[in-house]
Every structure is written in structure tokens, then in C-alpha cells.
């Protein structure tokens, strides 16, 4: 069973008058419960691939399926629905809504989904404790460290059990110790909850945690090392 599947996906950007190839015929399947790292030099296509798999961007051609459902041909509203219910995101920065507390940030997705307040509170309390933020539920992002903010973002990404969690350079703004803690958290989530993780990074430390390592160059997959298969 695949959590996400891309078939011959192409994406071309306009940069001034020039066409820039973002993805050049990428085909990829990620199993449910997989832990994949995408690595590439800057501009290699990893963020573009994450955006396409997450329904944030549409490919020019090819197919993208999330949890068995094709998403590349959906409308904006339908894509928003898929993102809300099937995908969790952790971005490099500006991950949290500053006017909401840690708990409210975690509850944000659930509230948009229409989950009842009592259930929201229970799940957010549990997940914040799981990511090591018990007692900080009512803090706003400005009163939290970068590592704590990323943990809140991770908690928000997984709290409604999405099919996949996509993380784009989640450790880029963290010191190595905090980054290590965050990756241990990702590993625990992957192992304990079976959460499918796809992380775009150029951090060697992060790659060390992945079960599968995919290297991209100029919008193409050039290397795919699956430690589980081997």
C-alpha cells in the first residue's frame, strides 16, 4: 500500500523569460509507514516534489496519488480538503500562527476539520506531551525557542493522523542538538504511529535517520537507496 505515488511528474517554472525545469519526469512510490529523505543541491527539485506531493502545487503533467486518490487534477478547494485531511506539513520557518498559543496552533487543523472542542483539547494535550511540550500549551510562539516551535509544528502535522507528513528543511534553523532531538521525535512518530514521513533536506545528520534516501538533481531522481529493502 502506497502512501504517495508520483508517475512521470513534470513541472516547469517561468523565471523571467526562461523556463526552468522543476521536476523532469519524476516517478516515485513511498510506502505507508515509510521514512524518506529527499536530498539535492539547492534548486535540485526536492521542495518542488514535496509541494506537488502535498497538493500545494499542481504538476504540468503526470499523476500524483495520495492514499490511493489522484490529486493532480483537483480544484483549489478540493486540494485544500486533501491537505486538511490527508497531509501534514512542517516547514523550515514561519511554521506557526503567532497570535495562537501552542495548543491553539496544534488544534488549528482539527478545528478547521470540525473536530469537537473536548476531543481537540484531549488530543492536543496528548500530542504536546508526546513531543515534550507539556506545560507549554498556553505559550505563544514568540515565547518559545526555535526547537520548541518546530515541535509544535510537528505536533500539529501529526495530530489528525494524516496519510503523509511532509517536512521541508525542518532542521535548517535549528542548532545541531535541537535538530537531533527533532529527528528523534520524527523517528519515534514513524515507529510508534506508523506515520509516513518525507523530509526534504541537505543536512547529512537528518539523512542518517532516514530508512530511504533519494537524491535528486536538476529535477530528476538520480539515486534511490532503500535501507529497508536492502
Amino acid at each position: 500500500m502506497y502512501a504517495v505515488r508520483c508517475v512521470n511528474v513534470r513541472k516547469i517554472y517561468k523565471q523571467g523569460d526562461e523556463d526552468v525545469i522543476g521536476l523532469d519526469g519524476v516517478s516515485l512510490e513511498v510506502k505507508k509507514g515509510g521514512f524518506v529523505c529527499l536530498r539535492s543541491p539547492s534548486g535540485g527539485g526536492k521542495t518542488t516534489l514535496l509541494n506537488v506531493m502535498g497538493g500545494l502545487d499542481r504538476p504540468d503533467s503526470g499523476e500524483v496519488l495520495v492514499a490511493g486518490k489522484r490529486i493532480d487534477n483537483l480544484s483549489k478547494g478540493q486540494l485544500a480538503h486533501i491537505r486538511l485531511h490527508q497531509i501534514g506539513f512542517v516547514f523550515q520557518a514561519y511554521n506557526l500562527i503567532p497570535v495562537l498559543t501552542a495548543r491553539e496552533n496544534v488544534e488549528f487543523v482539527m478545528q478547521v476539520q470540525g473536530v469537537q472542542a473536548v476531543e481537540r483539547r484531549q488530543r492536543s494535550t496528548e500530542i504536546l506531551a508526546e513531543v515534550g511540550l507539556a506545560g507549554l500549551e498556553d505559550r505563544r510562539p514568540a515565547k518559545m525557542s526555535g526547537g520548541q516551535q518546530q515541535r509544535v509544528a510537528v505536533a500539529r502535522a501529526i495530530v489528525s493522523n494524516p496519510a503523509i507528513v511532509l517536512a521541508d528543511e525542518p532542521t535548517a534553523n535549528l542548532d545541531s542538538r535541537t535538530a537531533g532531538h527533532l529527528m528523534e521525535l520524527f523517528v519515534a512518530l514513524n515507529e510508534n504511529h506508523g506515520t509516513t514521513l518525507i523530509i526534504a533536506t541537505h543536512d547529512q545528520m537528518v539523512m542518517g535517520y532516514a530508512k530511504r534516501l533519494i537524491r535528486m538533481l536538476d529535477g530528476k531522481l538520480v539515486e534511490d537507496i532503500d535501507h529497508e529493502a536492502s
Partner: protein
Amino acid sequence: MGEIAIGLRLAWRNLWRNPRRTAITLAVVVVGVWGMIFMIAVMRGMVDGMLLDGIRSLPGHVQIHNPSFRDDPTINNLLPTPNNNLAAALNDLGVVAWSARVRVPAVIMSERNSRGVTLIGIDPATEAPLSFVADDMAEGRFLEGAEDVGLILGRRLVDRLGTEVGKRVVVMTQDPDNEIADRGFRIVGVYEAQVASTEESYAFVGRGTLQSLLGIGDQVSEIAVLGADYRDVEALYQRIDAAVGDGAEVLPWYELNRYLSSMLGVMDGFVLVWIVVIFLALSFGLVNTLIMAVFERVREIGLMMALGMKPAVILGQVLAESLILLGIGLLIGDILAWATVQPLRGGIDLSVVSDGMEMMGVGNVLTPSLRASDVVLATVVVLVLGIFASLFPAVCASRYHPVEAITKD
């Protein structure tokens, strides 16, 4: 519901992210709404004053005439004094007061000067509750009966004639046969009207005395009727018209004095224009605040969209910020306007600019009139226009592409 709740919470908190900017915008809205409501109350008061003074200056709310009187307002087009049936009907129709009058053009000559006036024969008992003259007596006495042979003049006319209470003047007019009808009257009282031009225009004598002078028996020129409120005159007018029948013409005040009625219509239009003008001024502040707020939060908006919030909810969130700001501003502005008008309910003394006020047909005292309907109109117009003004930043926010918004510098 969840999306709406989180959208409203975000709207409220985002407003206070930059308290100084929000406070300044709020102050603009409050001052704008206060100015809007207060000025409307003042203008309403001015027009009400014009209308009430105008109505008190003889027309009443409804008048009954000979059908030819309006085309030819002479002594030849008269009505009989109301018989018992009509008098009983008038008393049963919710009429507050009514009075029959004789009205003729006349010349008054003192030993020093002469002036043309409208000479009005009244029954002081029925006239007192209906028009200004009994209330505005400033010197001497009011008429004591329909057969009183005394003469009441306005202050300015007395000054122009160079005469005074107690002196005699000669009043000259024409009878129905176009013969000169004249006699001497002693000035028994002087009135001071709200509008000085009235003082030069009208002189009052006993109705029976004037009927005798003109030789018209018990006929009268007009029957003026006062109802409870000039704004609700239509029903009264219909009832009187039905009671009087075809033998006489019945007209409401707004037909008798087109200037006054047009002022009422102009005022309604002015209120709307004034609200829109003030709103346009304050909308610049409002839209500027919202645009700044949206531009500052591009990444955040992108994040919310990436997490699955629908563009319509983003749009609603920005509109909600605008409506909350306007709602608070309207509430404070309305309360301030009410608090400003309350101490002025006794009227604002404008005697220092009385000449200018008189040109507009307004008395020396201006009483602001704060109407619930004006406050509701202002509130609705500000909210509706506020939504339109906020649409631009709101639509901008809802049209962001999540990927571009998140990565925006």
C-alpha cells in the same frame, strides 16, 4: 462552524497585534461616526426647528379652505364658520386643536409710517394652542375674545411703524365689494416671533371684529387644524378630508408650504450623502490598515492555506477584522454622539448668528434631534460600505498561492 470560529478568533487577535495602529484606525472610525451622527442630529434639529416654526407660524398640520382660495386668496373666497356637525367631527378626529380665521391683506398706518401686512382675525381661545402668537407675546396683553377690538403686532413692525403698545393705528383693507374698509385700532400687545420676518408680516385682531369690518357675517378664510405630530399628518388629513366632503379643499401642511416639505426631503437625502462622505474619508484609514495587515501576514496566510483553510475563510477573516473594527467604532461613536446630544436637548442658543439663522427660516435656539432611524441608517451604511471597502484587501489575501505566500520575503 469550526472554520468560522477560528477565523473570528484570528480576526480578533490579529487586530491587536499592532495595538497602536488599530487604536488610531479605531479613533478615526469613532470620530467619523461621532461627527456623522452629531452633525445629522444638528441638521435634523435645524430642519425640525424650521418645520415646527413654520407650522406654528399659522399653517397648522391641515387647513380647510374654500376650493378657490388657493388660486385667489381674497376675501371673496370664504368658508362658513364650521357648523356644529363639522366642529363635532373635528373634535372627534384626534385633533389637538383647531381654529377658524379670517385672513386679508391690509395696510397699517401709524402717525409716522405705514406698512403692508396680512391681517388675521382670530378667536384667541382656539388660536392659542395652535399657533405661536399667544406663546410669543412680549409686551401688553393677548386678545381676550373674538370680539376684542385690540390689535396685536410683531416687534419689528412696531419698530418700523415707530409706534408702541397703547397707541392707535389705522388699518385699511378691502371688503368683498372692493370698497375700502378701515378703522382705528389700539395696539394692545406685541409679540416676538422665532423668525423676525414673521413679526413684520402678521397682525392679529379679534375674528368677529374683522368680520364686522369686512361685512362678511360669520364667514372665515381658513380653518387650521393641529394634530399630534406633523410627521403623522397623512391619516389626520385623510380623516378630515372625508369629514369635510366636497364643499371645501383640505390640504396638509406639506402642500401648503412646499418649501418646508422639500426641506424634509432634502434633509433625508443630505443625511445619506453626509454618511457616505464621512465614510469615504474614514474608509481610507480602514482600507490602509487592512492592506498593511494583510501584507504583513502573507506568509501566515500562505501557511493557513497550506494547512487546508479555504480561501473563502481567509476572505471572511479579513472582512471580520474590518467588521469588528467598524462595529467597535460604531458603538463608541454612537454612544459619544448620544452623550454629546443629551446635554444639548435644551437647545443651543444661536442668537449671536440670529440674522443668518433667520435667512434659513430657523429660530435662535437649535435643538439637536437624534433619531434612532438615523443611527440605524448610519450603522447599516457604514457596515455595508465597510464590507465593500474591505473586499479589496480581503480578496487579495484569499487569492494568494500558498507556495508563493509561504516563501515570500
